[in-house]
């Protein structure tokens, strides 16, 4: 059977959409909980199957299958279309999205087993909506559909971060995520409209043809590219709009794995990959993308070292890895960034789900309260270490090649300083991830100042931490095996990158990773280096990292000192100037009316007299005219 890829991806897109509509409309089904979950998983599985088939049937890399319908008609022709675009990028991304979505939905059955049925049904309804919107975004053949789905995934992110909406911090985090990404989305919308004014089309294929006929640096393209980048920076948590992602960890862990690690946050990277032809016209914006990406990668890596919450470490790690991808795109090699997007999606989902299994077992996020969990949760420990090795860029694991390719791309792009920043970030990545591993799964009984969590009274009900049920471990194993399979596959078969890397790059990339692992081992396992002294040696950097580099405070300061002052000024002008003018006008009207009313005596004879005088005057006037 060889169905056309465009029909297959359409099936993949519509399966979760149908599930969402079903769960949204049929309330008893939604409230049934488990049944709703199974239906949703069936939808995701259908999507996964269709996506894999589409990938197999796609053929050569240059093949593009489109299926579009007219949506908004205009005077001559069509203003906007909806449909699907199946090419090598979108189909690979589709496979990633549907794979992680399916595994996360299966995993959630175990993770959220304590939820009431109605909440579980609501969760799966949102999950299906997310799967549909994310696939719609990936498959969008034009900017308009992309933007709509872009907002829909933002909505799903908001709904799922705030899934436990009775918790004040979760509700606040949801709002913060929504507003911060919205700040970028305004830029994206402006960029799309400006681009449409310039070219008269939203369609990616037409835009690519248009871009091919233009010189780099034509007037106005820099602004457009910057606006598009703003949207991508908000979604993909680039400095300084990254502040929402660590807080987004308030949501359930499977949601963090799916939305805030593997798929939605990579939408910005995907957008830039998809529209790389536009960014090539704006080299200045490309440089900005690379520098901000590298800066974000380094900054987030430093911040991740200072976190004690396992999910926040992973969140900052995600921000850092997104910075890597952006840096590669900024260097002009979108392929390298996209490759890292795919591998990162797999192993970061694995890490989050592994962290979820740990949290599920010990009921805390604090790594200083965990320790020696490798004994009680051997399976989780193994898969988590596989994910960590992938992220650290150790050979034979998924992250190794894609990360090295990014380093090579940035170097080949002539960006030496960002390259150094990324190399330092790679060292820190290995360090902070193995810090988590050693503190969580190994270490000693006096693992931290507060001791292991399972000695806390909460778990004294004869309830020792143990591996999660099969419904949670099987997705973990699938992702772990995939991480390794991808890594090993790359050893044998990998298409040559479009650039030359120096021979010392591979040893250097592996070296910094191993150095980071070594330092973490010495500090947190052997304890031959005192962690506290290491931290205090960092001096002000430590203080800054614990405060998140004061970026949240900077936003607050801007809000209070600029925005509030500005709006108070506007408010004063409105109250006293605009309202003043209006009040004076109305006072004059009232006064004039008060004077004019005295003409009305109310006596009939006065009116009759008026009429008579009027008639006489008319007669005289008519006589005069004649």
């Amino acid at each position, binding site marked *: 059977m060889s169905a056309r890829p465009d029909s297959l991806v359409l099936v993949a897109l519509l399966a979760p959409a149908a599930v969402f509509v079903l769960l949204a409309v049929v309330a008893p089904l939604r409230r049934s909980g488990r049944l709703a979950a199974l239906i949703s998983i069936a939808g995701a599985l259908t999507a996964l199957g269709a996506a894999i088939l589409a990938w197999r049937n796609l053929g050569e890399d240059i093949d593009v299958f489109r299926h579009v319908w007219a949506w908004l008609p205009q005077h001559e022709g069509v203003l906007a279309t909806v449909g699907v675009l199946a090419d090598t990028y979108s189909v690979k991304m589709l496979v990633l999205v549907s794979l992680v979505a399916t595994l996360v939905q299966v995993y959630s059955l175990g993770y959220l087993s304590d939820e009431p049925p109605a909440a579980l049904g609501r969760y799966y309804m949102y999950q299906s909506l997310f799967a549909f919107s994310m696939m719609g975004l990936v498959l969008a053949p034009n900017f308009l559909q992309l933007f709509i789905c872009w907002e829909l995934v933002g909505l799903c992110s908001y709904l799922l971060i705030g899934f436990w909406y009775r918790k004040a911090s979760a509700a606040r985090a949801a709002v913060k995520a929504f507003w911060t990404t919205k700040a970028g989305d305004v830029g994206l919308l402006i960029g799309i409209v400006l681009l449409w004014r310039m070219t008269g089309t939203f369609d990616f294929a037409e835009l690519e043809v248009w871009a091919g006929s233009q010189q780099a640096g034509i007037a106005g393209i820099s602004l457009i590219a910057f606006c598009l980048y703003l949207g991508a920076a908000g979604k993909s948590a680039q400095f300084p709009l990254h502040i929402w992602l660590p807080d987004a960890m308030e949501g359930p862990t499977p949601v963090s794995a799916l939305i805030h690690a593997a798929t939605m946050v990579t939408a910005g990277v995907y957008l830039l990959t998809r529209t790389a032809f536009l960014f090539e016209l704006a080299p200045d914006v490309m440089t900005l993308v690379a520098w901000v990406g590298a800066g974000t990668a380094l900054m987030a890596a430093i911040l991740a070292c200072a976190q004690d919450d396992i999910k926040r470490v992973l969140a900052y790690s995600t921000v850092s890895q997104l910075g890597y991808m952006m840096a590669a795109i900024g260097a002009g090699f979108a392929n390298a960034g996209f490759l890292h997007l795919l591998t990162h999606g797999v192993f970061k989902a694995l890490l989050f789900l592994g962290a979820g299994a740990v949290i599920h077992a010990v009921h805390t996020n604090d790594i200083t309260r965990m320790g020696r969990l490798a004994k009680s949760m051997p399976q989780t420990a193994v898969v988590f270490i596989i994910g960590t090795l992938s992220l650290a860029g150790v050979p034979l694991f998924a992250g190794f090649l894609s990360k090295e390719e990014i380093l090579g791309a940035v170097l080949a792009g002539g960006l030496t300083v960002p390259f150094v920043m990324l190399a330092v970030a790679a060292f820190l990545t290995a360090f902070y991830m193995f810090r988590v591993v050693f503190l969580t799964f190994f270490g000693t009984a006096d693992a931290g100042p507060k001791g292991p969590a399972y000695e806390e009274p909460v778990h004294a009900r004869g309830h020792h931490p143990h591996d999660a049920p099969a419904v949670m471990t099987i997705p973990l194993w699938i992702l772990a095996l995939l991480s390794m399979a991808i890594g090993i596959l790359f050893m044998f078969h990998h298409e040559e990158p479009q650039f030359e890397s120096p021979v010392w790059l591979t040893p250097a990339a592996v070296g910094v990773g191993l150095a980071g692992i070594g330092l973490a081992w010495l500090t947190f396992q052997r304890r031959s280096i005192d962690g506290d002294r290491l931290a205090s040696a960092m001096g002000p950097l430590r203080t800054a990292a614990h405060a998140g580099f004061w970026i949240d405070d900077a936003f607050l300061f801007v809000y209070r000192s600029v925005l509030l002052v500005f709006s108070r000024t506007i408010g004063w002008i409105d109250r006293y100037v605009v309202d003043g003018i209006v009040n004076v006008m109305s006072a004059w009207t009232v006064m004039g009316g008060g004077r004019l009313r005295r003409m009305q005596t109310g006596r*009939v*004879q006065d009116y009759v007299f008026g009429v008579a005088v009027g008639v006489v005057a008319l007669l005289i006037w008519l006589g005069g005219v004649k």
Partner: protein
Amino acid sequence: MGLHAYLFLAAVVFSIGLFGVITRRNTIGILLGVELMLNAVNINLVAFSRFHGQTAGMILTVFAIAITVAEVALGLALVILLFRTRRTAIADQIDWLKG
């Protein structure tokens, strides 16, 4: 006598009626003034009808007289109602429309 004499008479009667409407303090007096003005119009109609040899004016006059009767009945009823509610028939004191 020519047409002009009749028209002159009608004008005089109309003016007297108008003067009465404007100057009379009693509402019944005002109604009488209105009657005079209507009759001035009737004189006009009859005079034109007679001198132009058309009967339409006569018929219209008959209608006008009939309607005037109804109007007087209605007007007097209003005056009586006014008197009952306001205890007065003096036009100056009836100024509900005063602004």
